[in-house]
């Protein structure tokens, strides 16, 4: 199990390294996530120890945001002065973003399904890479 803790840290370290060397606008941990993901795609399975470490740490993901959240104390006066604009912007934007993202995804997934369903003839379907997808043809 310890070796997989080390693996997570190593991926993050590599991510930070990539960020420093290439100036990609991503955090080291997000690059590390991509690296680990590609590693898993290559070996095509999840080692039991990694599964265990990742579910342990992700189970308490919310806890990890608490220290940063307490940082609100540093900006109390600005928040007091502009609370109405900030509240309106954050609440409005959150609701709108959830709806827009969800609606676009639903629309496009629906369109994709429909297109595949309407394609006539089994030969055409086999030559189409979409039919390799297990769920969409039902």
């Amino acid at each position, binding site marked *: 199990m310890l070796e997989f803790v080390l693996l997570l840290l190593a991926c993050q370290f590599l991510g930070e390294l990539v960020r420093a060397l290439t100036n990609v606008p991503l955090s080291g941990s997000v690059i590390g996530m991509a690296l*680990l993901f590609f590693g898993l795609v290559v070996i095509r399975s999840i080692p039991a120890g990694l599964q265990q470490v*990742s579910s342990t740490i992700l189970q308490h993901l919310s806890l990890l945001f608490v220290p940063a959240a307490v940082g609100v104390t540093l900006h109390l006066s600005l*928040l007091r002065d502009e609370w109405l604009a900030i509240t309106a912007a954050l609440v409005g934007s959150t609701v709108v973003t959830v709806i827009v993202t969800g609606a676009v995804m639903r629309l496009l997934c629906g369109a994709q399904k429909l297109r595949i369903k309407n394609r006539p003839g089994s030969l055409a379907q086999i030559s189409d890479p979409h039919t390799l997808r297990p769920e969409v043809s039902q």
Partner: protein
Amino acid sequence: MSNVRQALLQLTSAPLAGLSLTLGVYAGCHWIYRRSGLKPILNPVFSAALILVVLLLVSGVEYEAYFRGAQFIDFLLGPAVVALAVPLFTVFDKMREATLPIAVAVLTGAITAAGSAVGIAWLCGASAETVRSIASKSVTAPVAMSIAHDIGGVPSLTAVFVILTGMLGAAVATWTLDLVGIEDPKTRGLAIGVTAHGQGTALALQVDATSGAFAGLGMGLTALASAALLPTLAKLLW
């Protein structure tokens, strides 16, 4: 008696205090949250942070002193984000089925998040500092802060907006998605991740594994899209 007082005072700024206080308060809040049947209003990040802020203000302990202990928890965010690769891999096939919808939904979502926040804040008469800092509020904290730096915002203020967005997203996303009748766990997860980054992902993971994985995906891609687009869009606006 005064010895005890002095010893206690010294201990409040030692790392042990910030660390154990954070864990203790969170554990309590999480217990209540579970007992309530996961009521969004009792989101443990929000309630724990609220209690800790009040404790700091009442006791007069500086945030820096608190963070000396809390940084150990904060540090774990990095490896935790890396660990999201595991749930992501489990939905790899579902992801490939929907590459185009995911890409378009994330791009639209990332632009909507920044545009609507900036627009509403500006219309409500917020200061330029706030408007510039709020643009990257739907992006995961470390990336959001570097975007803020690039577009003339205040990174530590952006961190506050990011966290508040995460709490709000966790509180209203489920309700909003139910309202517009979106039931597919992939779509729900993606929308939550795009809107409310890691905190949203944490919530989605508690609901089910597929939406958790898609939330993680939404979070990562939103960071990428926002980092690529916001600096250019900001140049056009200010």
